[in-house]
């Protein structure tokens, strides 16, 4: 046995001569050993379900996942991708819902963050009030708005009546349902975007602002050319977090319009569609296919956003 311990890697601590082999092995591999529980956890809770869903998507599993199912290859994928009745409209709604909601949330969130940026009297209370929607359960929020937007006895139409505007269908209308759910989503999640952006704003240093002010830049010029570029990394994080969350919105849609996103699938996004395939139709094969495709869409969107973020940081 060698008497001199060679240091294999820089992270390995020097070991005294004569230490048993296993101790040295543990020393050499400790970064893996410490990470092992977390890695097992991730594998069990992320990789396995994903792999299993991937497998199911290649079978015709239906009725019961315990029932015998046949391997059908990419047949489900071809079926789903050529489905212009439910799948593609659901993709369209998912993109519309996410895009429009995100746009409003970022613009409004930015406005609120800028308002709260500089200290003023009663700021604490304003912050609490703005955060209220954020702490409510989405399902409860959906139920609440469903009552408010009830076309016959709801508060929204009563309020419109006071100012002389006729009743609106809101959630009940085939073409107004999706915009109404977007409104609910904006109502609930704008505070979160505002919170993230506010955190970003308060961490900015004052010097560039002062320099710009001395140079005679207007408020808008300072926002456009100083604040916004400095805030870009935070903004991307906010868009990323909220975007992914908006993509997979389920509870608000389910609580307001129920199964299938309403009688005409008015608000049926990919998530609602996949849920219906699993729990209403028991079509586990097709449902898994939709989920895998959805997963790819989310990965794609995330990749596009992070690529942009790196560009912005360059």
């Amino acid at each position: 046995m060698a008497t001199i311990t060679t240091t294999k890697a820089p992270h390995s601590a020097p070991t005294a001569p004569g230490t048993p082999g296993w101790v040295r092995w543990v020393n050499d591999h400790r970064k893996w050993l410490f990470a092992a529980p977390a890695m097992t956890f991730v594998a069990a809770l992320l990789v396995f379900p994903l792999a299993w869903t991937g497998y199911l998507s290649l079978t015709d599993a239906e009725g019961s996942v315990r029932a015998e199912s046949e391997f059908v290859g990419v047949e489900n994928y071809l079926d789903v991708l050529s489905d212009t009745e439910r799948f593609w409209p659901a993709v369209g709604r998912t993109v519309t819902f996410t895009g429009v909601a995100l746009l409003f949330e970022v613009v409004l969130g930015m406005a609120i963050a800028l308002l709260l940026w500089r200290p003023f009297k009663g700021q604490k209370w304003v912050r609490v009030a703005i955060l209220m929607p954020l702490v409510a359960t989405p399902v409860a929020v959906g139920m609440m708005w469903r009552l408010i937007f009830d076309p016959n006895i709801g508060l929204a139409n009563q309020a419109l009546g006071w100012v002389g505007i006729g009743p609106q269908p809101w959630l009940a209308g085939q073409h107004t349902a999706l915009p109404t759910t977007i409104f609910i989503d904006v109502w609930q999640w704008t505070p979160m975007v505002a919170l993230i952006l506010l955190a970003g704003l308060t961490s900015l240093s004052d010097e560039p602002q002062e320099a710009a002010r001395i140079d005679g830049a207007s408020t808008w010029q300072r926002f456009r050319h100083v604040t916004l570029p400095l805030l870009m990394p935070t903004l991307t994080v906010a868009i990323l977090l909220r975007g992914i969350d908006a993509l997979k919105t389920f509870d608000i849609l389910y609580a307001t319009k129920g199964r299938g996103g309403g009688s005409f699938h008015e608000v049926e996004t990919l998530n609602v569609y996949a849920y219906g395939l699993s729990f209403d139709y028991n079509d586990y094969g097709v449902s898994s296919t939709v989920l895998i495709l959805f997963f790819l869409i989310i990965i794609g969107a995330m990749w596009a956003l992070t690529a942009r973020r790196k560009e912005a940081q360059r």
Partner: protein
Amino acid sequence: MRRRSIFGTSLAVVAAMSLSACGGGGDGGGGASTTVRVTLANHVWTENVKQALPAFEKQTGLKVEITQLGEDQLSDQYNVKLNAGSSDIDVMMYRPLQEGRLFAKNTYLDDLSDQVKSNATWDFSDFQAGPVEATTHEGKPVGVPIITEQEVLYYRKDLLAKAGLSAPPKTLDELKAAAAKIKAAEPDIAGFVARTGKSPAVTQFSSFLYSFGGDFVDGSGKAAVNSDAAKQAFAYYGGLIKDSGPANVSTDMGWPEAMAIFTQGKAAFYTEANSLYKNATDPAKSKVSDQVGFAPFPAGPSGSKPYNIPSWALGINSSSENQANAWKFIEWATSKEQTLAQQKSGVPGARSSVWANPESTSTFPKDLVEAIAASTKAGVGHDRPLVVKVAEAREIVGQPIVDAITGKDAAAAADTANAAFQKFLDDEAK
């Protein structure tokens, strides 16, 4: 659950799978436990059972653990747990017409052939034939029907009197005329209200379909939702809601929404299952409790043909390790005494001997008893297509209903729906 995401949904399915891998063992640890785990839906029946439970527990020494869920949650729960072969449900309350075929096909439900014969005083032959048929799979009983339903006409006595009508409408034509008359006289009040959601409306629409002479499938098993009778029924039902229904009517109403409009005093006529009548006559829930009347389902061209179905039954989970005690619970809950007690508190049961006992209907409104008697005579034994994947079929055959309500061409929608339904039937027959 706070939010069910893509991961949530796939996890639920996958969790079910991984559990099934280690199935068989279960968490009971082998041997029957003295705790019977019973999963029940939110229903008057359940409330009554809960009140009677202490007597059962004292008598048998068993402990009953009840899980109570709303219909949709119950359905999801079964989907996950039964798929996983979970043994932590012993007795399950299920809907024979909605999930019965699927559960039986997947062998989630235990074969009860021996149990139903084991006790002569319990008397299985006492159960009405129609409901028993719905809980029988391939000749074997897999469930015991507990609640039956017929569709009846709910109406407002005061509004009828105000409109100068001396009696509730006997035909669908009379119903249409009366609803239009009341709506014209009272702009704030709908002449007629009923379910409008694509899937929820199907069951209540079925009585209209039958009374016009149609059905979901014809005698040879082919899709028949575009028959002349069916087209007339779609146009009638949709037109009635469109013309005489509530202002700004939505196409999402299930029974809670439609019932709310009726009990808020905003509608004159309402067709719905009789088993929900307490919502309308209970002063705590209804503003018009003292003005509600009941009549048999109005007659169409083919007469008055409401559905007459078992809406709920009790079954035993085939993965349960506590089946003997589970049966003890079912035997007690479906006994003549319990059925009588249930019926007296307003839950129509499936036992002939109980119906023959005048005491069982003594608490019902008199006109409701007459309406039920008329319904059971000419009633049809199903209220939705009799298939395995009922939820999917309901969405297909329900489309023309919502199209008609929104003023679209009901006949064209029926043709489209029929083609889709035939394809669905072909797929299922494969």
